[in-house]
């Protein structure tokens, strides 16, 4: 059959017929026009923002690192963290409940999700804030459906706006998280459960040791999104006077009337935080991908380095780049 070109050698190491193609590139005039137009508009907008006197960058600089703003920022972070901890833990419980063979248990989880996803978060925030109106100022804590009272609490002291905000955000988040966790659990191959059971693991051990760690790979990316989303959603509790980032800047501009620069302070801080979280999410996903892929995707730093070495060696052997680089042809069999 004579010489058959070997497919997949790819490296460009000169063999017969492996000569580099030299051709005049096709003209993409449309692309050039679009590129110029977009660049022009981008520069114009940026220039406008940075030079417009209305933005009052002096005030922005004055307040960006001010104590009040930093305190608000810290509270926003605390709200996000606590609400997510509540959301994730309760979400896992709800997801396992929904998959329970006991009908009442799974219905209870369904009902919870139905309620908390079916009403606006803003309404839930108000409800928790005014819960004392429902319970009276000194509700009794005891055994339900009996007259046994263990102790009485002061509802107004117990449910501060901050706690109401945490409850509202956390309980609402649990409803969404439970659906994410449930999808993750269902995505794990049934053979895994059977194998775990075949060596004598109980249902709980199977869930904890075998299923949930694998479900994580499916659960982590949307959970990262939820966290980023929570960071921004936490601004809603400003309506019940919790001095997180947004309410803090509102308090300041209600006195100084410098609305836009103060809102820009909040905006830039939110952007910084979401950027940091996005980077964190990348590494988290990478960690949970271990064992599932033969090689992990490169980190941005590794990719940057690869780009650099590629430029040096490209003349002889162009490296494949992209998230799956290195997964091809490295079969350990």
């Amino acid at each position, binding site marked *: 059959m004579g010489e058959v070109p070997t497919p997949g050698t790819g490296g460009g190491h000169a063999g017969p017929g492996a000569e580099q193609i030299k051709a005049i590139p096709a003209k993409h005039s449309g692309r050039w026009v679009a590129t110029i137009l977009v660049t022009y508009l981008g520069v114009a907008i940026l220039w406008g923002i940075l030079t417009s006197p209305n933005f009052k960058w002096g005030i922005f600089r004055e307040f960006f690192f001010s104590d009040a703003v930093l305190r608000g920022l810290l509270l926003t972070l605390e709200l996000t963290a606590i609400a997510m901890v509540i959301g994730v833990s309760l979400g896992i419980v709800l997801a396992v409940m929904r998959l329970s063979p006991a009908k009442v248990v799974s219905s209870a989880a369904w009902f919870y999700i139905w309620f908390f996803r079916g009403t606006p978060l803003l309404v839930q925030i108000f409800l928790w804030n005014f819960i004392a109106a429902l319970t009276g100022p000194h509700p009794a804590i005891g055994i339900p459906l009996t007259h046994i009272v263990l102790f009485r609490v002061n509802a107004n002291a117990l449910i501060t706006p901050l706690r109401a905000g945490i409850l509202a955000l956390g309980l609402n988040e649990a409803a969404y998280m439970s659906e994410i966790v449930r999808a993750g659990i269902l995505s794990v191959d049934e053979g895994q459960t*059977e194998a775990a059971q075949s*060596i004598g693991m109980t249902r709980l051990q199977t869930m904890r040791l075998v299923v949930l760690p*694998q479900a994580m790979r499916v659960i982590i990316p949307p959970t990262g999104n939820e966290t980023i989303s929570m960071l921004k959603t936490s601004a809603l509790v400003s309506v019940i006077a919790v001095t997180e980032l947004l309410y803090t800047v509102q308090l300041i501009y209600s006195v100084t009337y410098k609305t836009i620069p103060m809102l820009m302070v909040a905006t830039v801080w939110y952007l910084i935080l979401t950027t940091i979280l996005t980077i964190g999410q990348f590494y988290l996903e990478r960690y949970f991908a*271990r064992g599932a892929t*033969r090689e992990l995707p490169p980190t941005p730093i590794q990719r940057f380095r690869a780009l650099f070495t590629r430029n040096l060696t490209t003349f002889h052997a162009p490296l494949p780049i992209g998230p799956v680089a290195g997964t091809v042809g490295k079969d350990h*069999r």
Partner: protein
Amino acid sequence: MSTVTPMVKSEGVRKSFGHVEVLKGIDMEVAPKEVVVIIGPSGSGKSTFLRCINHLEKINAGRLAVDGELVGYVQRGDKLHELHDNEVAQKRSEIGMVFQRFNLVPHMTAIENIMVGPIQVRGESKGVVRDRAQKLLDRVGLGDRGGAYPAQLSGGQQQRIAIARALAMQPKLMLFDEPTSALDPELVGEVLEVMRELATEGMTMIVVTHEIGFAREVGDALVFMDEGVIMEAGKPRDVVANPQHERTRQFLSKVL
């Protein structure tokens, strides 16, 4: 009949999925140290029967006992009581099972896959289990691959790890559900070799497979199943050389 308790005793076992009856009365007895090979076309119920033995499937009728004890139930007086989940789990831990698709836990290394059962289910100490796991790795010829993740191993290697995982629980019975069907032809031999050794060492085994050669050399008995019933059973050489049923003849002519 001998006085020895059979390792597996199945009497009139029936199993339905919805309206489809997959097992229509299976009678079988497996003596300790015996190797029984089950063959048959797909859909004949052979895998289902295997899964009934460690209660991954619940039987609808008949009696099924392992080592003299009913599977999934306990008899008190003339009434059957369903076993609690944890009791079922405890019984399963004494029966090893190897699956067609290996089902190793992907986020654990090979040796962790082997160790997780004894540590978590039996509560044995890590040091003891690690030694035993390493010995098992050596035994299946993968002594140096303990740190590898399943995805870094070939199918044949994964299946050998899966066998080691089952053996780590020191089972009294091993069930093999088409252990070589998902493997490239060149990898089948290494898995069969491990199984052959296991049989020589006196493990009681029930093997569902299409490997007639293995059945003939290693099996003490060969069972041919079709459409939920046992069509024919006997010494492997006899069944293969001289099948009594037309259906057995047809099947063997296709797989041999």
